[in-house]
């Protein structure tokens, strides 16, 4: 590409700013030097002057005093909230809405994090105040690993002809459960968390029971 063509292309791009007087050196000197040798660029510059002179455009019917009067009261409004629409045009409402709900809105986020912190603290306090030994209350759910209440060991024996169904009924009604046996002598080992005296009373009332004795309080 020749130097003239390069200068021509540069000048073509820079002519608008030569026309408005803002082109600075060294570009201005270079473009002006090119203009002396280029009729096309001189014609283009003339055209730009024409456009510049002709196209100021209409002036909108705006009222500076009215607009300023609407703005002045907003100067003291906090900058956090966008100023309300002076025209009352509803189209501004959803835009403000979306902006305030945006996840990157620092003010919204700050409030959200503060609330979250308060909820965590409240839950922590509730947790700290919860009962230490829930199994001590009757009817509470107790897991297998929970600390057992005190149990009493019992021994019981039945008449040899007691059917298995009758044996189950007697044990169920007594409130004790089998933990061992029968031994070689036909004795069953029982365990109960209820009062041993009442369990023994119920067992001894059964005709099929030949022996019912307490072994004393066992493991807790």
């Amino acid at each position, binding site marked *: 590409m020749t130097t003239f063509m390069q200068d021509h292309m540069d000048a073509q791009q820079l002519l*608008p700013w030569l026309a*408005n007087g*803002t082109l600075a050196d060294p570009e201005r000197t270079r473009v002006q030097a090119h203009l002396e040798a280029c009729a096309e660029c001189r014609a*283009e510059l003339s055209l730009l002057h024409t456009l510049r002179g002709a196209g100021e455009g209409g002036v*909108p019917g705006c*009222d500076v005093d009215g607009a*300023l009067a*609407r703005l*002045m009261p907003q100067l003291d409004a906090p900058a956090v909230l966008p100023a309300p629409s002076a025209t009352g*045009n509803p189209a501004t409402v959803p835009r403000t809405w979306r902006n305030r709900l945006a996840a990157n809105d620092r003010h919204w986020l700050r409030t959200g994090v503060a609330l979250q912190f308060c909820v965590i603290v409240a839950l922590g306090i509730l947790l700290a105040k919860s009962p230490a030994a829930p199994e001590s209350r009757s009817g509470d759910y107790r897991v297998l690993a929970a600390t057992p209440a005190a149990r009493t060991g019992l021994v019981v024996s039945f008449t040899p002809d007691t059917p298995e169904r009758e044996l189950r009924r007697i044990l169920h009604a007594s409130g004790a459960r089998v933990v061992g046996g029968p031994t070689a002598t036909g004795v069953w080992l029982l365990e109960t968390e209820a009062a041993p005296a009442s369990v023994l009373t119920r067992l001894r009332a059964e005709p099929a029971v030949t022996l019912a004795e307490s072994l004393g309080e066992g493991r807790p």
Partner: protein
Amino acid sequence: MRTPCLDRQPDNFATLARTAEGEVRLIGLVTAGDRRAFEALYRAYFPRLTRFLHRMTRNPMLIEEIVNDTLLAVWRKAATFDGSSKVSTWVFAIAYRRACKTLQGFDEPVEAHIDEREGVDADRPEWQFDQQRMAQAVETALAALPLAQRTAFQLTFYHDMSYTEIAEIMDCPVNTIKTRLFHARKRLAFLLEGQLEGRP
């Protein structure tokens, strides 16, 4: 929070608003909360901004709202003006951003796509020799340009801004501004073909 001002007469504030250096002083006073200085700045920029925005929307109330939105931002952010650019560049950049955002929110026709229009030749303004008709023809042709080209053209020819200032206002590289203006001129030459011949 107000700084002492040597002379608070409105006329003096208005005088300050006539030069770039004076505008910087006004911004300093606005930073300190001086409402008289702000009013002077407001009155100086109102006609310039309304004229600028008039090419983006013809709704006067909307133009006033964007101007107020812009100058409210100037009031609140005056302390952030660091003097690295002219006050006018800073203010116009705010106005341009606010206008683009507002007009998108309103579904305003901010950009005319001439290629999508039928009968381009039929839209060409008729040849008129008087200045008023010529101005109308240029106005019509400018309205047919895409917003980015129209804005670059307008800031160059009707607000006398340098390409670096326009690049800053429109937040794009200088070469993009030069290219936009080059295409804008070619488009205008096409639209005004025959009407500019022989004119001074």
